[in-house]
């Protein structure tokens, strides 16, 4: 068992120190680089939290949501996919590749339940990515959902 601080605390403290103690003393290119580093800490913290949640779900006997959804879209069993690929991440990669190829081939073209389930899945995984990488953008997008383009 690791001692304190845990990863989340460490990342938060590093980010705070950077923003409060380093950034104000810098200018120009050095300051933008420091701000980019602060952003990296934010992303690492979000990824760390997401990985911890996924691990907890798997340990409590749950199935990876992404794997289950992918398998559902392709009419496959998630367990079999995991066995064939040799792990959850590898199965997700392999089914995603398959899904990408099926989309290109037009399997999800016809309007209806299959298409809607696909779109729903794509929006969900993409939103999760944006939530990790840039939560502010997600908020702004949500606010403007009905905007005139």
């Amino acid at each position, binding site marked *: 068992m690791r001692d304190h601080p845990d990863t989340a605390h460490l990342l938060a403290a590093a980010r705070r120190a950077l923003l409060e103690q380093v950034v104000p003393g810098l200018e120009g290119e050095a300051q933008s680089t420091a701000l980019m580093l602060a952003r*990296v800490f934010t992303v690492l913290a979000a990824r760390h939290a997401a990985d911890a949640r996924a691990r907890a779900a798997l340990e409590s006997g749950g199935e990876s949501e992404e794997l289950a959804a992918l398998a559902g879209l392709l009419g496959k069993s998630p367990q079999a996919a995991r066995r064939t690929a040799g792990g959850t991440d590898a199965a997700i990669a392999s089914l995603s590749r398959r899904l*990408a190829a099926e*989309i290109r081939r037009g399997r999800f073209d016809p309007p209806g339940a299959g298409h809607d389930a696909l779109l729903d899945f*794509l929006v969900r995984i993409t939103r999760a990515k944006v939530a990790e*990488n840039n939560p502010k953008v*997600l908020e702004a997008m949500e*606010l403007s959902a009905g905007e005139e383009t």
Partner: protein
Amino acid sequence: MPLDPERVRAPLERFLAGALGREGCRIARMARLAGGTVQDNWYLEVQPGGPGAPVRLVLRTGRVVGTKESLPAEQEYAVLCAAARAGVRVPRPVAVCSDPAVIGRPFFLMDFVDGESRPWKLQRMPEVMAAGDAILEEIGAELARLQTVTPAGSEGLGFLKPPRDAAREQIADMRAYLDGHDHPHPAIEYALRWLERHAPAPGPVVLCHGDFRFGNVTIAGTRLTGILDWELTRWGDPYESLAWFCMRFFRFARPDLVAGGLGSRAALLRGWQKVSGRVADPEAIRYWDIMANTRWAVISLQQVGREVFGGENSLELALVGLATGEMELEALSLIARATVAQAKGRGVAEGAP
């Protein structure tokens, strides 16, 4: 590697004397300009021999080896000249040099244009934001002028190959890139499939800046003073740039202002329509909005690719990769909206309520 000003001073001063037709040119100041992960830009203050005010120029050169899409200096110079001939507000092209003996690589010179181009600075200037729509009308008008350059009427642009079908060729290029990529991208594939199924019939192509957006225009006071960065120029559909300028990613701190985070799309279109005499087709705009986001999503993957293989500003390039999802999500939501709009359009056509 960036240039070393001291090492290039003497040969560059000789070149400047010839280019400006003035004896005894001295470089009074040479300073690197911020921005650009592909190009290296230098501000030059040149004092010609004898009386006269100093000449302010920008020297532009490829930083390392350009990316596949970016034009080498000589070609970018030719494009800048074509835009200037068409009456587009650009920095006046001054001279081009292909001789590697001068600074070690090809470069060109243009007039220095007064103004600010960095979006985060401009968005903090109340007078600029208050004049946003008026500036956008100017930008739209300049775009229409640029679009008078066509493959048939152009001189010296033979190195740009006109596409037979602008939309379908871009889709094919993006798919080819994804096929060589180690990660699958189902959301991008979905957008590409939609773009393929809704592709417009091929139409005439026009000169297309390739990165026509806020950040590549200079504004002084409340006036547009120039359109910059022509390294990605190619032939394309007239609507491509109207969509590119409005991409969410390039609205910076003002995502609520659709056209570049500066103002309304209506203003951009007003300027474009006034000069082109065309009426913008909303369906074409919706299509190219989706294309723009999909394309920028794929380019962001390519930029990370550049970072993975090393190079300068690698943190900056790595962070571009964090944005791929933003463009994917925007493309998905635009497709959903386009589907609703089409259904409504059909409803009207069939006389439904």
